[in-house]
């Protein structure tokens, strides 16, 4: 899932304080699960922002709250279409994709981010999320026995480990496990240590963000001339 965390109340307050009527929009998908932008967090932030605005001399500002099922899909934004014109601005508690989807849907309305989108990751333990995937567009987890060195090695080394791997930890941060140590141990457990003798050729970064914003098209699923934006 996409993991995010909330911006400081003061930062959001400063973004929205020029507007008199602001709608906070939560998202019921990834950011609900990572406890950053779901219905509960929208309620907490709404309350906090109203107080912060009052203390900053903007007591006449209105901050209302709502949460939609999914911000990154235009069909789910339909339910906001009637309500949105009542407001001067939207503050989205979705990920960066959600913020941009709202901005595309409401071209004349300022849309502000309430979250800092962090990464694609997993729930490691209650309240702790860790990054696992960089979305490089060319998955090679099969070669690396299910541990991604592109995401989890600070140097993105494909032929590791480097000299900074000490007692299974990365030199960047002693709390960070060395991805190559994990690959080595797992390859040993799977009995495929000989794979690590092969030199891995350079990665094709053109499939990642370095090749510009990406697009996935499934022509068999496309319906020409239909959809909200058609």
């Amino acid at each position, binding site marked *: 899932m996409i993991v995010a965390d909330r911006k400081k109340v003061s930062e959001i307050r400063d973004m929205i304080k020029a507007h008199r009527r602001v709608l906070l929009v939560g998202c019921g998908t990834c950011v609900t699960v990572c406890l950053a932008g779901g219905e509960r967090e929208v309620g*907490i932030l709404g309350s906090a922002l109203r*107080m912060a605005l009052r*203390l900053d001399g903007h*007591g006449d500002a209105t901050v*209302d709250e*709502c*949460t939609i*099922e999914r911000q990154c899909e235009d069909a*789910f934004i339909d339910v906001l279409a009637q309500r949105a014109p009542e407001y001067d601005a939207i503050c989205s508690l979705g990920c960066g994709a959600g913020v941009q989807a709202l901005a595309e849907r409401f071209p004349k309305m300022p849309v502000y981010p309430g979250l800092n989108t962090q990464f694609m990751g997993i729930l490691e333990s209650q309240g702790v999320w860790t990054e696992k995937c960089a979305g490089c567009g060319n998955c090679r987890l099969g070669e690396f026995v299910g541990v991604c060195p592109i995401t989890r090695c600070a140097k993105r080394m494909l032929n590791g480990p480097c000299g900074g791997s000490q007692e299974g930890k990365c030199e960047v941060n002693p709390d960070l496990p060395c991805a190559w140590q994990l690959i080595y141990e797992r390859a040993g457990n799977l009995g495929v240590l000989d794979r690590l003798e092969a030199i891995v050729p350079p990665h094709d970064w053109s499939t990642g963000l370095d090749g510009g914003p990406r697009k996935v098209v499934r022509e068999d699923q496309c319906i020409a001339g239909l959809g909200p934006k058609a």
Partner: protein
Amino acid sequence: MDHEPLILAFCCHYCAYAAADLAGSMRLQYPGNVRVLRLPCTGKLEVNYILAAFERGVDGVIVAGCLEGGCHFLEGNLRARRRVQRARQLLAEIGLEPERLEMFNLSSAEGTRFAEIVTTMVQRIKRLGTSPLRPGAVGSRQMAVGGRWHVVDGMWWPHIPPTTYLNPKP
């Protein structure tokens, strides 16, 4: 202090609420600035309950749960302590003094301690002064709230629509 402070106490049914009851039975004297709100356990407490209280203009909030290790639901009071800590961080971000919120642990036999807790908090809140969010508090801007909030018994009450979870219509 321009007003008598108003303090909301979220009290666990199994300890602090019983202790408050005992304080009454013992005819103990403590300031009448506190309003007790009973919870089945402090684990029921959510961060937005605390924020909603401050938003309406209370000057301070007490969260009173069982002694650590003595929760009727095993660890509700430990969860409440973490939520109170988070709410204090949020209060600081908002610009209110985090000291306006405090969690205490006590048993149902401690009527005297309940009276002490209330007395301590009232003294602390008097030192901090009226909440700047209290209607008419000195230092707060006069709020032209556009009819969205109104004052009842010296507190703000919202006209905002309840948080709605919108689902797309089929």
